[in-house]
């Protein structure tokens, strides 16, 4: 649907987006994830053809988009963008929603019909004649979304659509986005700094950091196989650094990290400095006497509980096993095992659940492995 190759954009000497290569597929929900200031908004503006890239090219549906303004407008009219600030105009709700159709020269009665049906879809039917500026933040954002989707875009761009909204409004808007994607087959590109939102809505994710697309792929890849420390931290894993690959046979490596030795699946060769990412939900805790025998595919580390944190129906248990390990156990099993501070436990982790990332500058990171 959209192909970007080598796209860069500079503002006042600062390159905000650097050499982006990315393909957005028709009909998918693609989430651009990254911390504030990582270039998400700039990239969306480039895709919506509001700005031109300094280098690189963007193709829309196979055609180049670097033509004169009227050609770009014709392409732009096949897309719609919802900005972080709703940008509603000082007019009624229905007038606000009608703008895109008016600009396209649609007849009044057809506009009215479309506006009425989209108002129903976003659940604002009762507010059609209200002044849009008197609405709440969540309602205004729904007006902005209605205004975008009423034009029946092939691609819907959303820039932090739920930033600063309460959980209920966020849920309404997330449901709306999914519905538009499912019912109208609209391709959706969503920028968000909220990992969870990306995970809930998107089929694929691209991680932007400091203007670069550092990783793009299926959700599973990003969450379980982050390519570097920054992404790992961003997706909620605390990487433990200071590891060195001791040996590697058929991608089953033995890694020495601090005082322990860990089996992990990786292609990295012996001698490489690495950091380990272990997702808390992959760690099983058991009492010392019942430790299953360590096999080549399973690590069993003995340790002491240093911290217990309630986490919804779960408890996050931090265990010092020579390296810090966090386990996510249900509150029920935490009570059954009678876990408390200082309890000695065994943490079992499959070798396939240990994700190894290269960590060449580990020595520069004395704060490695700090727990939240």
């Amino acid at each position, binding site marked *: 649907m959209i192909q970007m190759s080598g796209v860069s954009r500079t503002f006042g000497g600062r390159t905000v987006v650097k050499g982006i290569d990315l393909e957005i597929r028709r009909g998918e929900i693609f989430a651009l994830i990254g911390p504030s200031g990582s270039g998400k908004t700039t990239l969306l*503006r480039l895709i*919506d053809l*509001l700005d031109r890239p300094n280098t690189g090219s963007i193709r829309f549906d196979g055609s180049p988009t670097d033509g004169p303004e009227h050609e770009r*407008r014709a392409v*732009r*009219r096949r*897309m*719609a*963008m919802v*900005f972080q*600030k709703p*940008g509603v*105009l*000082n007019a009624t709700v229905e007038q606000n929603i009608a*703008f*895109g159709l*008016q*600009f*396209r020269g649609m007849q009044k009665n057809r506009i009215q019909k479309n506006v009425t049906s989209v108002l129903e879809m976003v659940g604002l039917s009762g507010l059609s004649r209200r*002044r849009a*500026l*008197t609405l709440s933040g969540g309602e205004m954002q729904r007006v*902005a979304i209605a*205004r*975008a989707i009423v*034009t029946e875009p092939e691609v819907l761009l959303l820039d932090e659509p739920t930033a600063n909204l309460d959980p209920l409004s966020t849920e309404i808007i997330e449901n709306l986005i999914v519905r538009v994607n499912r019912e109208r087959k609209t391709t959706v590109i969503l920028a968000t700094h909220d990992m969870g939102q990306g995970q809930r809505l998107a089929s694929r994710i691209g991680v932007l950091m400091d203007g670069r697309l550092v990783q793009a792929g299926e959700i599973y890849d990003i969450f379980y196989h982050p390519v570097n420390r920054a992404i790992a931290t961003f997706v909620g894993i605390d990487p433990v650094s200071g590891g060195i690959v001791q040996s590697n046979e058929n991608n089953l490596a033995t890694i020495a990290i601090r005082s322990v030795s860990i089996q992990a699946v990786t292609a990295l060769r012996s001698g490489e400095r690495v950091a380990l990412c272990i997702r808390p939900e992959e760690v099983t805790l058991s009492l010392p006497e019942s430790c299953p025998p360590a096999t080549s595919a399973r690590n069993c580390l003995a340790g002491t509980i240093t911290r217990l944190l309630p986490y919804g129906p779960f408890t996050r248990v931090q265990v010092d096993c020579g390296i810090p390990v966090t386990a996510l156990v249900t509150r029920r099993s935490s009570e059954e095992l009678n876990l408390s501070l200082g309890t000695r436990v065994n943490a079992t982790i499959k070798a396939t659940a240990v994700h190894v990332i290269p960590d060449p500058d580990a020595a520069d990171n004395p704060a490695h492995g700090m727990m939240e």
Partner: protein
Amino acid sequence: MNEVQEIIDGVTQAFQLIITLNPELLQVTALSLYISLSATVLSTLIAIPVGGLIHFREFAGKRVLITIIQTLYSVPTVIIGLLVFLLISRSGPLGILGLLFTPTGMIIGQTILILPIMTGLVITALSGVDRNIRDTLVSLGATEFQSIAQIVQEARFAILGAVILGFGRAISEVGVAMMIGGNIRGETRVLTTSIALETGMGNFGLSIALGIVLLAIALVVVLIMNLITAGALSDSDKILGGPMA
């Protein structure tokens, strides 16, 4: 004591003149309104497109131009009077049109006088519209003309403020009216020149009456504007950052 008595007499006489609808008072008021309203309409027709062009286009010297316009906010009325006089006097480049000492000449003078402040305030009004709005309109597929029209519409209350201010400066000025109009009774005599003349001649009653009318016009203008913005006052608060007076 004598002065106080004079003032009291003047006020009494003023109310008599107003209540009895004194023909001269009416004629002067009507002419004032005609000239200043015409100048305001003309200036509005020029200020919105020119202000829009300056705001929306990027060009070299844009900032300098805006600074010049802002400096001209406070140009003395007599300087505009002098300028227009030189232009339209019998020996001037436009002397052949015979505009000196005519209401048309006064309209031209007042239009030039209030054009800078109205253009400047239109630019300010348009700058007050969030940049985000412009992006939104473009992303919704607006052409350049469509988005400019919509942004002018969005800035309507602030632009209305500019128009009101322009009218206020036009109807209250003396310099252009005196120098270009010449204060000819029944032809180019307006409220302000009238007050100047009658006061000089000691006719305080008529002067005070004219002054009251002038203030009443200001009051009516404010009331009309409040009426227009009443339904949207809370909205205009959000746009302008405060209620308009």
